[in-house]
Structures are given as C-alpha cells and as structure tokens.
C-alpha cells in the first residue's frame, strides 16, 4: 500500500529529528550558564550528537548534515570557519568506515569508542585552529573540554536514546 501524504510527511519529520536535536545541542552549548568556570571550558555537545546518530542511525546523519552542523557551530561561536565542520566530518567518516564494529555493540563499548573517536576529532580541530592562527591553541583547555565531553556522554546518550525511541521509532 502506498503511504499517504500525511504518512510521508510524518516520516520526513521523524527523519529530521537527529539533525534538529544536534542543532539544539549546539545552541544549548552557546547559552551562557553563568556557572563559575563553565565559561572557560564547555563540553563539545555537537560531537556527542553527531557521534550518537552516526552510530545508531547512520542513514540520518550523513556527511552533508555533519558538515552543515559543524559550519553552523563555527559561525555561531566565532571559531575559525571550517574547523568545526572538519571535526564533525572526521567523526562521521570514522564511524561510517567502522560500521561493522559498531553494529550491535553495547553502550559501554560505544562509550569507549567515543573516547577514541572524540580524541581524534578534538585533536583535528585543535590542529586546524593552531595552523590557522599560526600559534598552538591552549592544549590544556582542549583536554579539559574533551574530558568533560567524555563524562557527559552517558547522560546525553541516554537522553538521545529516549528521543530515538519515542520520536523516530522505526521510521
């Protein structure tokens, strides 16, 4: 039976969920929290979003989405254009190339893999920014941000899993 117009629109909207949620994470990361110390380091929420969806719904988080999300983040935060885009592209490409490894793995394993993928991705951005400015960006800050992101992954991953369960289902 051919799906009706409404059904198709519904599916389309559900397929947009990963992109929109990651977009919201980027906006959330830019919101001033007024927490002491949190202005100097912020977790890389976009990295978590893109990684999660690339692992669990690679069909809904392609290279194009990762690139445009990264570019949006660069524009919003004032970071050098293209550096965030490159970081998220690298993330997606690693996950996509290792899809056999990620298939059906437990949460703990994907978290452990996130530590590796995130390290490479954050390192890439650090290198790109350092090259652009011709001056090594503060490695300590990047390290703290990376650890913060790693610590936040289980919580955010759980929330994203809820979103996947209720908003996307099998669409």
């Amino acid at each position, binding site marked *: 039976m051919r799906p009706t117009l409404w059904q198709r629109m519904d599916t389309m909207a559900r397929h947009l969920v990963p992109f929109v949620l990651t977009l919201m994470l980027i906006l959330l990361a830019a919101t001033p929290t007024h927490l002491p110390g949190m202005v100097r380091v912020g977790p890389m929420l976009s990295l978590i979003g893109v990684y999660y969806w690339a692992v669990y719904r690679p069909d809904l988080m392609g290279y194009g989405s990762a690139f445009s999300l990264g570019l949006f983040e660069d524009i919003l935060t004032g970071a050098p*254009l293209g550096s965030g885009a490159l970081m998220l592209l690298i993330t997606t490409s690693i996950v996509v190339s290792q899809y056999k490894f990620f298939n059906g793995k437990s949460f703990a394993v994907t978290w452990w893999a996130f530590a590796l993928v995130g390290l490479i991705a954050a390192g890439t951005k650090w290198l790109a920014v350092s090259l652009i400015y011709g001056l090594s960006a503060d*490695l300590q800050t990047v390290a703290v*941000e990376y650890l913060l992101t790693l610590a936040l992954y289980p919580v955010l991953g759980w929330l994203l899993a809820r979103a996947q369960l209720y908003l996307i289902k099998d669409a």
Partner: protein
Amino acid sequence: MKQSTVALNRLGALKGVMQRFALLALVGASFALMLLGKADTVLVERVRTTVADSVAPVLDVLSRPAASLAAGVEAVRGLTDLYEENQRLLEENQRLLRWQMVARKLEAENEALRSLQNFRPEPGASFVSARVVADTGGAFAHSLLVLGGSSDGIRKGQAVMTGEGVVGRVAETGLRTSRVLLITDINSRIPVMVGEGRQRAILAGENTDRPRLIYLPANAGVVPGDLVATSGAAGAFPQGLPVGVVASVEDGVVRVAPYVQRDRLEIVQAVDYGLNGILPGEALE
C-alpha cells in the same frame, strides 16, 4: 532475479563511490572555508551576522531560564553569608567614603586647573545596553553574542564595558545582534598603559583567561598588582578605561587578570566615545 541483485550490487557500489566523493569534497570545502575565513572577507562577516540575527530569538529564549536559574543559585548562596557580606560592605563603605572626599577635592582642583589651561574637554560618551545571549569560551574562540545591533545604534569598533571594566570591542554588527570580541580572544589587541609609570604596551589575547602584555619595554619594571588601563593610543579606546591587574611576571611574560568576570556577564554596554578607531571609515560600515 539474478539480474536484479547484480543491479542492486552495482547501485550499492555506485552509492559508496558517491559517498566517498562527497566526503572528499566536504573536507576540501572545510579547508577552503578556513582559507576564506583567514582572508577575512566582507562576505564571511555578512554570513556570520545573518546567521546570528536569525538564531537570536532562539538564543534569547534559551538564555532566559539559564539566567534565572543562575540568579536563584546566587540568591541562595547570598543568604548563607549575609552577615559576613554585611560586615565587609560596611568596611568597604567607610573606605569608599574616605575616597569620595579625596575624589571631590581632586575634582575641584582638576576643574580649576583645566579652566586655567583652557583645556578642551573630551566628547561625552553615549552607550547602548545589550543582553548577552551566547557566550562561547574555550580553546577556539572567546566571544559573546549580544541582543542589540545596528538598528539599536551599536557600531563596529565600539568599546564594550561593564561596571567592572573593559569586556572587549564590537567585532561584527547585524541588524539585531552583535558579536563582541573579548579581550581574551586570540584576535584581540588593545593598547594599554601599565602601572604608575604608565608604560605603554599592547594587551594580546591568547584564548586563555589571562591575556599577556606584548611590546612592553624591557626595563618597564612591571610587578604583579600593577593596574592596567587603556592608553587611548590609535584612537581605538578612550584613555583610562580599567582593564585589569598584572597577575604574574615570569621570564619576561607578563600576564593580566581582567577585572571582568566572564561568568557574571549578563548585560554589557557598547560605548560610543565618538572615536573612529584603528579602522578607516569605510571599513566600519
């Protein structure tokens, strides 16, 4: 049946090739954007301001609960040390009253001397207050997005202040939002003077919370605790705006602790001193 699987396989292979091509093209595009951003064209800036303008309403909504949550936490924290705070304020008030007397005396003296010298007063300043809706810290950029743009009278190059001191300067203005480049950002360079000797130097950000002083004479004799204020050189900022204090002097590297507390920034003021800044007139448009 066999034919269709062959076709499917071919389709799959083609899709793989296309994907790989897309990845390469997008990585290439990232590098191209890095070069384009480095060239700092008008186009890049226009794109940045347009995007900031369009997401401003969302950021505005998001930043409100965050601000009220922070205010709540602050209120509870304030209650616990009310007594100590009161004692401290009483002492501070007494000290300030003494300073007020000194200041009044100096003001009168200044007035009298100026009238003797036929001194031309500096033009008065006008300011626009704007709410901070996005604050990006970290290793890669230090900037704020504020809710106020060219339609509110904020212009590129204006000094941005709070009651505590200099925050930064307006780097980009859209219609409704502006980007403030903080003094700690790697792209920030501000002419300052240091200590009682009023040594001239440039305060250069490094994307850390302690910017450093460069072009400071070797025999400047700067020590931790020296005050840092804008020097007014090059007409970018007026003279004497408070910036911070010297935090450390190690191996000739002088670092400054800004007065402004980043995590408390809620409302900032873009101040128009009628100065044109370092940039030529047309670049400000």
